């Protein structure tokens, strides 16, 4: 299969997960949120070995086990059965969350409902019957304490509106904290302190105007703009 055919067959989810994996460096402590972020683990570049953190109290998760090897006491933060790699370490919940708050997690990939040009991310609350729901879990702790925060989301919602906003109006998970925004169309780097977006990559075949057409946020264009790195080579 030639590369163009391959690219055309990639799902939005796979594109995002593949590109997020490029943000992870060898030796890092990594926390992956649910949904698309979890898929990131499948696409780490060769030679990149990391320690996956589960907020429920573990460093060193491995892949899903075979059904009969699955154990009720070896689960990730979403209570999916996982395995433990050599060097895995358990810890209690309060310490696990303290590690998230205090900078011990190097990078997190988080799903998002919306992001915006100030580096804000919203992923814990939708309004139902006048109440915000379903609650923050550990995402807010991650947004507070992790130095490298990758927001993973589809570029537009079902109504066709951009999810990369000028200013998110949902309750935020973190303010001025996102460092990179990855969608199936583009990658934005967020300037320090949330002072604006820089378009650094586009999906092969898309140009800057294509991205402007589907993006509510303002953004600069990097002089080094290049096609999205997907680890397909």
């Amino acid at each position, binding site marked *: 299969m030639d590369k163009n055919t391959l690219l055309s067959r990639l799902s939005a989810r796979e594109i995002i997960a593949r590109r997020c994996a490029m943000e992870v460096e060898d030796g890092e402590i990594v926390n992956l949120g649910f949904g698309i972020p979890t898929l990131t683990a499948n696409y780490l570049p060769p030679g990149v070995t990391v320690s996956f953190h589960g907020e429920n109290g573990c460093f060193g998760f491995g892949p899903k086990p075979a059904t009969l090897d699955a154990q009720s006491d070896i689960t990730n933060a979403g209570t999916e059965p996982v395995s433990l790699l050599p060097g895995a370490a358990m810890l*209690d919940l309060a310490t696990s969350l303290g590690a998230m708050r205090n900078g011990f997690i190097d990078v997190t990939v988080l799903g998002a409902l919306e992001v915006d040009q100030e580096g804000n991310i919203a992923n814990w609350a939708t309004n139902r*019957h*006048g109440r915000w*729901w*379903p*609650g923050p*879990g*550990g995402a807010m702790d991650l947004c507070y304490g992790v130095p490298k925060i990758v927001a993973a989301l589809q570029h537009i919602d079902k109504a066709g509106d951009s999810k990369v906003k000028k200013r998110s109006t949902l309750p935020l998970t973190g303010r001025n904290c996102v460092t990179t925004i990855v969608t199936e169309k583009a990658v934005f780097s967020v300037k320090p302190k949330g002072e604006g977006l820089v378009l650094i990559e586009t999906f092969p075949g898309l140009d800057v105007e294509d991205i402007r057409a589907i993006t509510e946020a303002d953004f600069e264009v990097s002089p080094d703009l290049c096609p999205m790195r997907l680890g397909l080579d």
Partner: protein
Amino acid sequence: MSRNKVMALDEAMTRVKAGTRLMVGEFVGAGEPARCIEWILEHKIGDLTLICATPGMAGGFGKANLFSADLVRELIASHVGTTAESSEAYFAGTLKIEQFFPLGTWAEKVRAGALGLGGVLVPVGVGILDEPGLFPDLAEPKQKITVKGKEYFVEEPLRADVSIVKGWRADPLGNVEFRYTGQQNQRDLAMAGDYAIVEVNEIVPVGTIPPERVGIPHPFIDAVVQGHSLAEQDRRYRDHWIKLGRLAPML
């Protein structure tokens, strides 16, 4: 070290009455005290205030059934929506949720209750969770304090009348051992309850659990009850994971 804390389920659970403020160990349904939860369902003990990290695991598993049976009056947690049952009760207005907390904040509040602190100062969510209108049911705004020029929430302790936690093994003194990710904050929950019940897969003689493998030391436990065996527990989780599509069905 002479007390024998092993009890029949019925004896230990007499502490759980209508209106009890109850902590239950778990994390999205993992590490749940299954038999104690079944007892509450069977005896229809209602009007409970439930303090736990999340409502449980999706798909009608364990603790989630407390919500569909309308036994929970109030939930104090970090998530509301990990189970459809809790979300439905919340939106139907039968389940009170005044506020929820970032998970680390929730865990620290439990620990403060466990260890006799007056509270903790938490920076997470400042400027977000104190936005007017975010928690319309809250009686008072969240208390803040400035220390060295930075704002923190003053997070008060959480405590309960009864705590029910889940371990792997326990001895009759009340020493509890955990397996892998079963540890969670079960110890803090046990210490934050006026009466602490532990349900375990196996009850072992004193001296079996190595001193460094004790996850809850004996003074923090009041009652030890026999739960499902580890094999039975594993079977139940596997079956549920297969039902949810998280594991491949067995051929």
